[in-house]
């Protein structure tokens, strides 16, 4: 199905270099831009399997949005004891500054990046929910265009759902909550790891790419500092973390924030995409409770499974983790990007004992998961087809309705046997093909 396409792998990668498809990384305090290696062998998802996945993703994101609406307002789920109070409020992503603030249309997570793996048992398992500023959609988006140019016959023959409307889907999401004014993509600047994506998506959705110094708030209204007349901003797709967003509300030392942005947001004069405070729902510890949220808010059985997870915070789970640490993967809930993930089986006995001590001392800081035996995908590396572990980041967009972008970022591990797929750890990416029949 993709044999011809694979023969063009090098050419496609050259084209990606031409378009500056890179990600940034700080190594030893120095910023470096790296090309993101692309493998032309796609992940292929058949139509019926996609429909199942799509239903599960919509259900999950709807539940997560309901949780955020509830948590920052009535907190009924806490009163009902579904999520322990301590657990919810001790999350580092929980922001008291967002309490009793309802974002436009009640949507907190407009763009959700849900990380999944496909188990060898054929089930999809959710590994992580990313509700803050999930990145990565631009890579399969641009790669699809280049692949179509390289091998038109394949795309003529294979019944694929087109994924190239991501920009207009994003625009619809922004327009849905826009409070009057232009749409802006707020980037911390050129030296951000995902800068390519910021600029590319701004172009694709016809929004203005702005750095913080180009925005200001006056009388609780956000403006873009135009050279002739200032333009009111109705929706801002921010690509910087909550804590840096507004130095008058969060970290006072932030030099990349927009002073008083939160005032404009609280006054209902601008939509922030995604809403501040979403970290309270994508905390690795809160992940444990997402299936319960689905049942609690939607009254439905969860369609997608979590990886079997243990919370050392609970005594029974702690005992299990202590007994079975060598068979588990232990994650620090405060870390991201593949950091803070330790496979017990890879540790020397002394290091494993040290890790157990850490877990005992700070049980809320860690979760433990069974190691999922997830599928390898065929991958073209050094001119041969080899199996590599791969995950999928699916993008769920919540506008008037919740919908899943029929594609996604498939990341694969470059090293044989490795499960670490993050770009910052040397991983590459694939396109994700959703078949239309």
């Amino acid at each position, binding site marked *: 199905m993709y044999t011809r396409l694979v023969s063009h792998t090098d050419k496609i990668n050259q084209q990606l270099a031409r*378009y500056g498809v890179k990600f940034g990384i700080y190594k030893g305090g120095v910023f470096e831009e790296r090309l993101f290696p692309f493998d032309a062998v796609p992940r292929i998802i058949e139509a019926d399997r996609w429909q199942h996945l799509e239903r599960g993703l919509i259900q999950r994101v709807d539940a997560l949005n309901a949780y955020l609406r509830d948590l920052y307002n009535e907190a009924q789920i806490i009163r009902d004891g579904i999520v322990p109070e301590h657990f919810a409020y001790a999350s580092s992503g929980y922001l008291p500054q967002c309490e009793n603030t309802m974002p436009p249309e009640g949507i907190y997570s407009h763009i959700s990046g849900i990380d999944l793996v496909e188990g060898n048992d054929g089930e999809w398992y959710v590994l992580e929910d990313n509700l803050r500023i999930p990145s990565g959609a631009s890579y399969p988006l641009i790669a699809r265009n280049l692949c179509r140019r390289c091998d038109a016959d394949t795309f003529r023959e294979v019944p694929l759902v087109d994924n190239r409307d991501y920009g207009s889907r994003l625009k619809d999401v922004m327009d849905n909550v826009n409070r009057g004014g232009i749409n802006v993509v707020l980037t911390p600047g050129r030296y951000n790891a995902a800068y390519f994506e910021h*600029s590319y998506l701004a172009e694709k959705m016809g*929004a203005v790419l702005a750095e913080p110094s180009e925005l200001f708030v006056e009388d609780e209204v956000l403006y*873009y*500092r135009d*050279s*002739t007349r200032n333009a009111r901003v109705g929706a801002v797709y921010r690509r910087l973390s909550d804590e840096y967003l507004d130095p008058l509300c969060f970290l006072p030392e932030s030099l990349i924030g927009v002073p008083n942005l939160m005032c404009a947001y609280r006054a209902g004069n601008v939509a922030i995409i995604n809403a501040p405070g979403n970290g309270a729902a994508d905390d690795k510890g809160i992940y444990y409770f997402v299936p319960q949220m689905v049942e609690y808010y939607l009254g439905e059985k969860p369609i997608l499974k979590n990886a079997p997870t243990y919370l050392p915070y609970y005594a029974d789970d702690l005992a299990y983790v202590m007994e079975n640490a060598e068979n588990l993967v232990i994650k620090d809930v405060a870390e991201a990007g593949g950091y803070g993930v330790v496979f017990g089986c890879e540790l020397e006995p002394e290091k494993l004992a040290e890790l157990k001590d850490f877990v005992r001392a700070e049980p809320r800081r860690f979760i433990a998961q069974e190691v999922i035996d997830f599928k390898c995908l065929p991958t073209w590396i050094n001119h041969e087809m080899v199996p590599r572990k791969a995950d999928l980041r699916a993008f769920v967009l919540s506008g008037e309705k919740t919908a899943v972008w029929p594609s996604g970022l498939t990341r694969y591990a470059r090293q044989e046997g490795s499960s670490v797929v993050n770009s910052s750890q040397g991983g590459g990416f694939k396109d994700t093909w959703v078949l239309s029949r």
Partner: protein
Amino acid sequence: MGTLSLERVNRLLWLGRYVERCTTTLQFILATYDAALDSTEGNWKGQLEELGFDQDNDDPVEFFHECLFSRTLTASTHYSMSAAYDNAVVLRDVIGTESCAYVQMALNEIERAEVSPTPLLDLQTVIDMIMAFKGSCDDYIANDSARNIIKCGMSIERMDLYVRLNYHLGDLRKETQKLATRVDRTGISYDRHAFKELIDKIFSPRFPEEVTYEELGSMLELIARVF
């Protein structure tokens, strides 16, 4: 004019300036290098010394390598192209990915030429990419103001270099006319008095044949004041 902050106006202008600086200095360096092939006696460095390159370096290969590929000297072609790229990449939503790609490729080609056995030959591709970028501005940049700001940046840089290097002075009138046609289409404010004074000097019957170094110096000051 579309939505452009002062920061972006500035970046558009400098994108044009750096792209032009790369083109003109590259051509100037290659012409000087060619002349130096016949003799490395006397002033074989030409006016390159005035651009800030190492006056004490007597090794022609090292000297020209530095002029072309130095990462630290602000007059090198690599430095100029790299600065153009830094501006282009933050303007992707204005100039478009296609135009941005030509700037990216010009930079890639300079880096490829640096390690090539035939660097001077390969540098032609850099010029080709820059020319493609200039052409793509017309086709891909929908914002009239943005397009004209880039082109004004190119014109002002070319004028600056011609005067600074006392090079192609006869072409300054043509360049001034181009600038005069475009500047009011940018929608940005500029120093009209300085521009008028510059026009008077360039279109004086004495120019360029009888122009003095002092007059060239005052023209440089006027060029710096226009934007």
